[in-house]
């Protein structure tokens, strides 16, 4: 076998390793059959809806990384959606209990609070709904029945995990910062999809898994209750994925969007006020500025850029390399290339960013340091 054949074989296997369909394929078949009379392309609609929700989320400031699915469409690799937590006293916290589910994930709460699972969503998966009030089942894609029962002086939060809505487990892993030493509530924004009310929202990754927490306080909730909610959130313990499923391993296997460099590019894009349009699979983040969509990614700095069309900018040189723009920063090379939007519904045209957006991107890349690996 020639070198190119070997390389191609490796590249093909790496390109789709672990990829799983985002929805139950039989559902697609049945949907297409039921809509054949109206000639609706359900698959395209699903993707368009997903894209619209994602773009809407990005443009609207929401951080939901994927549209929500109802059960029966995609169980994801996490398996069961029905979680039956067990309770035990929480060591060191009198009056608190620890709720542990079958996967080994746990959270501590005051014993008087109510904890329920919310099985009406398949993706993302709801791990816990915790409220100072009752937690009845109900709600299409948010715990709205529990919200309705929330006392004015109460609090409710939901912990969700993003599972395999896309082939790479989560569509935008770089948008989830590593969980810090202290988990906060996040900013209060919205009203968010499904909830219909403003919520605090925070996203993070822990143990190779991707989480989102949304919290609502009653209008008369006390500062002490807020502290208790934060304390409860910080008792959240999640079972880590095996090493080979951790982001570092996925990065090493060729899925760039799982690399820490992708998280850095995401920060740079945000700081440069460039709209993030999702990504092009696992190879690049897609950006949008002045109605032009483009791809951004990094490679190692082990190559030299020598071109006749390099322009000095403070701290580096931006080079035109064929159809691409590249510059060196923090030992990496950042690449930008014209690329169609990943969302066919987004009315933009592929193109390189204009000079102002490019300057902002370069400046932000110089300013923002690479995350520690």
């Amino acid at each position: 076998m020639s070198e190119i054949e070997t390389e191609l074989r490796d590249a093909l296997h790496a390109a789709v390793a672990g990829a799983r369909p985002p929805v139950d394929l039989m559902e697609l078949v049945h949907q297409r059959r039921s809509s054949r009379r109206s000639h609706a392309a359900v698959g395209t609609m699903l993707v368009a809806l997903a894209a619209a929700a994602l773009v809407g989320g990005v443009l609207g400031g929401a951080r939901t990384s994927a549209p929500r699915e109802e059960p029966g469409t995609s169980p994801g690799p996490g398996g069961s959606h029905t979680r039956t937590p067990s309770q035990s006293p929480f060591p060191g916290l009198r009056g608190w209990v620890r709720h542990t589910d079958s996967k080994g994930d746990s959270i501590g709460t005051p014993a008087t609070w109510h904890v329920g699972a919310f099985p009406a969503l398949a993706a993302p998966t709801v791990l816990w709904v915790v409220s100072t009030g009752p937690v009845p089942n109900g709600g299409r894609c948010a715990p709205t029945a529990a919200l309705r029962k929330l006392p004015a002086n109460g609090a409710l939060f939901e912990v969700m995990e993003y599972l395999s809505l896309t082939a790479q487990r989560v569509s935008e892993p770089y948008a989830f910062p590593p969980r810090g030493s202290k988990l906060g509530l996040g900013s209060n924004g919205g009203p968010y999809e499904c909830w219909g009310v403003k919520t605090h929202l925070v996203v993070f990754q822990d143990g190779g898994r991707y989480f989102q927490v949304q919290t609502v306080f009653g209008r008369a909730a006390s500062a002490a209750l807020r502290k208790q909610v934060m304390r409860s959130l910080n008792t959240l313990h999640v079972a880590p994925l095996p090493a080979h499923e951790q982001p570092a391993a996925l990065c090493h296997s060729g899925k760039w969007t799982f690399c820490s460099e992708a998280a850095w590019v995401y920060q740079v894009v945000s700081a440069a006020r460039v709209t993030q349009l999702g990504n092009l699979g696992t190879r690049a983040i897609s950006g949008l500025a002045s109605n032009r969509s483009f791809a951004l990614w990094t490679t190692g700095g082990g190559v030299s850029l020598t071109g006749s069309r390099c322009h000095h900018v403070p701290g580096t040189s931006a080079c035109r390399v064929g159809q691409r723009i590249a510059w060196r920063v923090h030992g990496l090379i950042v690449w930008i290339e014209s690329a169609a939007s990943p969302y066919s519904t987004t009315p933009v045209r592929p193109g390189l960013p204009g000079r102002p957006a490019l300057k902002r991107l370069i400046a932000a890349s110089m300013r923002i340091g690479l995350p520690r690996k």
Partner: protein
Amino acid sequence: MGDDSSESFEEFVRGRSAYLFQLALLLSGRNQADAQDLLQMALERAWRRRRNISRDGSPEPYVRQTLVNASIDRWRGLRRRAECSLESAEAIAATGDPIGLIARRDQLIRSLGALPPRQRAVLVLRYWEDLSEVETASVLGCSVGTVKSQASRGLARLRELSELPAGAAGRAEVRNNNE
């Protein structure tokens, strides 16, 4: 629909969904939306013929063939496709550099996406599916000679696209520092 053929077909789809999706992804140039459309089209077609298919054994060969043919027909019917730049700026990876390796593989896959659909299908079947030339010819409904020539042309084009544009005038040059 609770007959045996329905159940076995659903069982096949659920059991092989990852494989089918991966194949569709490669055939569609790694475009998830297109892959999903392709799968939907192919599976729905297979579902309608499930009774006949199940009489012949596993639905997999039929579904694979439908998927491959649908991918070729689909691109044939499209008037215009998004152009992919195939500049090979970061083609040479630094040895042992995983990011460089990623870039190299990425470029190969992107180059693959730029090949004519039949050539792409031949390469996917030969090098991802590991089908023999005879098996590939059977899936594509063409001669072994055609498979050979398509594979040869496809590989040559990939080699061409992924090589450094040495001495390309007016173009930035990218060199490996380690050289």
